[in-house]
């Protein structure tokens, strides 16, 4: 196969990720690798600046606080939020979505109401809403889909909008890799004064995100899928809405004043950050955003599209595999079933050739049920992957077929 030329200096970039020399890492949708400068920012914090944040009248504490709040500003800038008050640090997308589900439901969801989701969602953007629905005697309602799994925008207006209190949809599916038409959901929802949460776990750090242009009300994503540390996440929320929500977790830092049996709560964003935050995690995430921005999110996004195109061309003549998503324009994520080889066996074979892919339902059982397949194999690419890694994959796949064919 011909090597496509790329605008990104991939071979220089790969020096920032020494772990990539040990295997072909195609499991990026599960978690990305971290560049050395992010790893070092963590060690450096612990070695030189470690202290708790807020209220510390000593230099370590002041430095730690300044770095933590700088990271918040970095995040604000990265997603173009209006103010740092709209940026809440969480432990991940799952935590961010549960925060909204729980606090929003407490205030706004009552018996008989409904919550709009899709069957394409990751469990993290479905189960929290199921839990809330059952607690509040509300129901879930689903975005109508076309045969190609895109939103049926024509049918959107017929949804029971008068009962819908919030919509929660993913930006890029972690199984199909397609960018959903969130624009249409947001405009319909806003037409009915319904706020929209976007699960950006697979899009943040992959394509440019601008919450103001998007006009979403909440946006949730994880640090660890975009070169940042594990245990970090962000919830963006429109200030006016966040102000109205009751607190989620109770504890230190989220209070204004505490009496024996009641409390008043801190201003945003502290109101939603109870307890000692993952300070070093937030700082590392800020570093990851710096790193990605230096390369350029548009360049990264283009690179992922180029690689996807290469992958598509490199595999479309293999009759024995069938992709769940048939469009050419997937964003670095390819899930497929093999006519003979079970996803587990395929993953295990590829592992023996030092290629890491994922096999299973990828936390999207309803989607797999809808497609009537129990599980699939998934390749997920990031900007540091290469065309020659894709060639290796293709070769190993052919070997696997020779091994497993009866």
């Amino acid at each position, binding site marked *: 196969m011909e090597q496509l030329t790329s605008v990104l200096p991939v071979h220089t970039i790969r020096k920032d990720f020494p772990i990539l020399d040990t295997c072909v890492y195609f499991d990026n949708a599960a978690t990305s690798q971290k560049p050395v400068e992010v790893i070092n920012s963590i060690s450096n914090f612990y070695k030189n600046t470690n202290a708790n944040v807020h209220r510390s009248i000593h230099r370590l504490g002041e430095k730690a606080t300044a770095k933590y709040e700088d990271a918040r500003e970095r995040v604000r800038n990265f997603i173009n939020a209006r103010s740092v008050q709209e940026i809440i640090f969480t432990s991940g997308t799952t935590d961010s979505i549960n925060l909204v589900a729980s606090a929003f439901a407490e205030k706004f969801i009552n018996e008989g109401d409904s919550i709009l989701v899709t069957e394409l969602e990751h469990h993290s953007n479905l189960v929290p809403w199921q839990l809330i629905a059952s607690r509040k005697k509300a129901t879930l309602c689903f975005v109508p889909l076309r045969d190609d799994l895109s939103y049926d925008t024509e049918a959107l207006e017929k949804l029971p909008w008068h009962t819908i209190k919030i919509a929660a949809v993913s930006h890029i599916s972690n199984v199909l890799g397609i960018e959903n038409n969130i624009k249409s959901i947001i405009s319909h929802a806003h037409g009915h004064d319904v706020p929209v949460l976007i699960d950006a776990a697979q899009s943040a750090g992959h394509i440019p995100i601008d919450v103001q242009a998007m006009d979403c009300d909440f946006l949730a994503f994880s640090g660890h899928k975009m070169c940042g540390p594990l245990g970090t996440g962000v919830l963006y929320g429109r200030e006016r809405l966040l102000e109205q929500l009751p607190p989620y977790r109770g504890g230190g830092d989220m209070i204004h004043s505490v009496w024996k049996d009641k409390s008043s709560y801190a201003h945003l964003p502290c109101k939603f950050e109870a307890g000692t935050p993952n300070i070093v995690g937030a700082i590392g995430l800020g570093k990851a955003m710096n790193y990605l921005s230096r390369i350029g999110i548009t360049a990264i996004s283009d690179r992922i599209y180029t690689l996807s195109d290469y992958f598509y061309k490199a595999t479309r003549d293999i009759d024995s595999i069938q992709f769940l998503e048939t469009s050419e324009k997937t964003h670095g994520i390819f899930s497929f079933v093999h006519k003979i080889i*079970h996803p*587990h066996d395929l993953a*295990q074979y590829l592992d023996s050739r030092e290629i890491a892919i994922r096999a299973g339902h990828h936390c999207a059982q309803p989607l797999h049920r809808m497609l009537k397949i*129990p599980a699939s194999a998934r390749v997920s690419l990031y900007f540091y992957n290469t065309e020659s890694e894709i060639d290796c994959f293709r070769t190993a796949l052919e070997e696997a077929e020779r091994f497993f064919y009866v």
Partner: protein
Amino acid sequence: MFDELYQEILMDHYRHPRNAADLSHIPDSRIHENPTCGDAIKIEITSVNEMVTSIQHETYGCAISTASASLMSEYLKGKNVFQVQEEIIKFLKIMRGELPTDNLDTFEDLVCLAGVAKLPVRLKCATLAWHALLDCILHLVSGVTLP
């Protein structure tokens, strides 16, 4: 690791599962499933005087779960129901790492599954059929019919 797992004998049982049968008469509600990967198995046993005379299975799954079901059915057929239970429990313990793998030595060809004990992610593949069979046996013994 791959070669240790996908041995000749395992691949043979995967390609030609023993005691495999069409069990479409058994309702889907009695399928045993590993939801994380979609592997599914139906099991039917017959017994005479506390002896398991046949173990039939219909398995949809990976090489390891299919071969494990096949090997299990051969190994346990003809044994007493109580002994079958004992063997299942012992096998599960070995797979979970609670007993050393050399305990597999008495399990005949099942020794080819020793590698799984080192791979917690594949544990459920190797043990699916065994959990399903244990359920069947317990219901047989207690005389309770499955819902």
